[in-house]
């Protein structure tokens, strides 16, 4: 009996505490539960509500997502979709994150940058320039000087639109002629782009031109031109060649002589001659070079800004001066000498590492690196030859310049235009 009493006393206090707290916590849960739920909901959907303030609620859309799209939410009352995206550029300290809303018409109705830790700032106005755009993102450009960050941002938004379109959630926007033609640019004149990012300055258009662009490296021009109801893209290089394309990417040069003449006249008037610089450099690279003569009519459209032929030690050589885009998107000055068989006799650059102050631990053996190109032809060429550890942009520029020189040489062999 005594033991029973003692056991009861042992259990009394713990049981009392458990019962009291069970009641208190149940009461608190009933009172605070809805507040806690509301807090959780607003935390989770806070950024979504910011871009779609009239939204009632959101539900997650199950879909296959690319790396750049974090999540897609459907607004439950049918207002549209809210999307969370991420993007990374070479200037990212950590990935950007943005949230944007797309209305039921397929247009961006709100945009918010949630995380932005890039070493270059594209400004608070840039994300807002997307508001009102449909999936074509026709009126959105890239921010000058912050092209990589803004391009990464734009690509992520485009990826998000692609997800919605692929899953039949919104209708695809219709691209305008100008946008279709500009998308041809990387394939028809690589001197005006780096990757998919335009490397040109806008010029005052004239005559049939809707817009005129001059390559930042001086490798040529691009024009959006109108004839009748149709629009065309004309590209011109530094060798007097011009090609015209329609919106489907078909070469229609032969059918539009007037546009060709107009584009070539504009290019001739505003073009830059690189002959003197090229001549001096090739004479230095190939001691004994003589009879340096400019080559005309090359119909390749790339980063080569000048081409010459010369004789050296009794043999004929072709010199190509390329200004492909290197570190910080700045044009490099790269000189490639090919022999009559199209094999590299010499390849050098005026300044191999631009802004060398950023490469403190730079230990490249430049003579050995340049010698590695010798003897390569278009058939044996490998971009691995151009690789410089820790200098990706320069490596890419050297590779692009070499490939462009081979293309220009091939054009000469084919008789040019």
């Amino acid at each position, binding site marked *: 009996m005594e033991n029973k009493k003692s056991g009861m*006393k*042992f259990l009394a206090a713990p049981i009392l505490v458990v019962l009291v707290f069970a009641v208190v916590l149940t009461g608190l849960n009933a009172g605070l539960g809805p507040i806690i739920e509301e*807090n959780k909901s607003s935390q989770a959907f806070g950024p979504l509500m910011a871009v779609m303030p009239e939204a009632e609620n959101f539900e997650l859309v199950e879909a296959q997502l690319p790396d750049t799209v974090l999540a897609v939410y459907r607004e439950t009352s049918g207002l549209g979709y809210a999307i969370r995206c991420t993007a990374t550029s070479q200037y990212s300290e950590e990935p950007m994150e943005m949230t944007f809303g797309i209305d039921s018409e397929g247009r961006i109705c709100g945009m918010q940058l949630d995380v932005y830790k890039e070493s270059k700032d594209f400004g608070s106005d840039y994300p807002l320039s997307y508001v009102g755009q449909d999936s074509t993102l026709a009126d959105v450009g890239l921010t000058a000087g912050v092209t990589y960050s803004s391009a990464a941002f734009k690509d992520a938004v485009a990826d998000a639109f692609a997800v919605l379109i692929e899953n039949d959630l919104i209708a695809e926007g219709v691209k305008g002629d100008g946008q279709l033609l500009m998308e041809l640019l990387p394939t028809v004149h690589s001197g005006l782009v780096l990757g998919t990012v335009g490397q040109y300055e806008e010029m005052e258009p004239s005559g049939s031109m809707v817009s005129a662009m001059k390559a930042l490296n001086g490798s040529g021009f691009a024009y959006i031109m109108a004839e009748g109801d149709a629009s065309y893209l004309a590209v011109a290089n530094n060798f007097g060649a011009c090609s015209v394309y329609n919106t489907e990417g078909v070469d229609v040069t032969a059918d539009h002589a007037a546009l060709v003449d107009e584009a070539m006249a504009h290019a001739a008037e505003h073009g830059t001659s690189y002959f003197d610089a090229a001549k001096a450099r090739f004479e230095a690279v190939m001691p004994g070079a003589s009879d340096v003569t400019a080559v005309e009519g090359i119909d390749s459209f790339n980063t080569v800004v000048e081409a010459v032929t010369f004789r050296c030690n009794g043999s004929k050589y072709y010199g190509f001066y390329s200004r492909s885009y290197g570190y910080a998107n700045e044009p490099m000055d790269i000189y490639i000498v090919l022999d009559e068989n199209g094999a590299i006799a010499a390849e050098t650059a005026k300044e191999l590492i631009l802004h060398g102050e950023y490469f403190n631990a730079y230990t490249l053996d430049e003579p050995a690196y340049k010698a590695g190109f010798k003897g390569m032809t278009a058939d044996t060429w490998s971009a691995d030859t151009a690789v410089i550890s820790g200098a990706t942009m320069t490596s890419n520029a050297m590779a692009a310049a070499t490939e462009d020189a081979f293309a220009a040489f091939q054009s000469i062999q084919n008789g040019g235009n």
Partner: protein
Amino acid sequence: MAEKKTNILRDNPLMILLLGACPALAATTDVRAAAGMGVMVLAVLLLSGVIVSLLRSRIAAESVVPTCILTVAGCTSVMQMIQEAFLPSVYNMIGIYGAIVAVIVLTNRFACEAVDEQSVSETAKAAVTTGLYFLVILVVVAAIRQVLGSASLAGLSLSFLEEYKIAAMVKAPGAYIVLAIVAAVIGKVSMKKEKEEK
């Protein structure tokens, strides 16, 4: 009264016995989190101390520890729920370390000691004093860590310190270093006071 204050300063559980150091280290990356944690500990100490003190006559000697543990756990759950409802940002900053208050020696030791206290009011007074010291030390440690480690204070950016940030301050070693320095300063002050009083 002066004797009591000096002893509390010297015998502060966090500084001398390093009781509650785990949440102290975890919650001191931001002043707001530190304040939230400090207030929570203070409230748990007060509530659990008062409850245990009230139940003192009904607690068998063998069930002191389980009763205290259950009381502290219950109080911690109550405080967490209140914090989650009314201070969700602080609740998120503290994260899992809020629940740890239920199992740290500081709170459980205090509750168990409350069984032996003279009265409820005395227990409450001791709880408030201990809790306030804990709160102040947490806020001081957090302020030092946040200013030196993140060049900010309670969400305000101190851009002029941006270049002088010490990354280690926001990590565990920084917490130990600052805690040790604060403990040393408090030790020195309390020793000096004791000498003066003698």
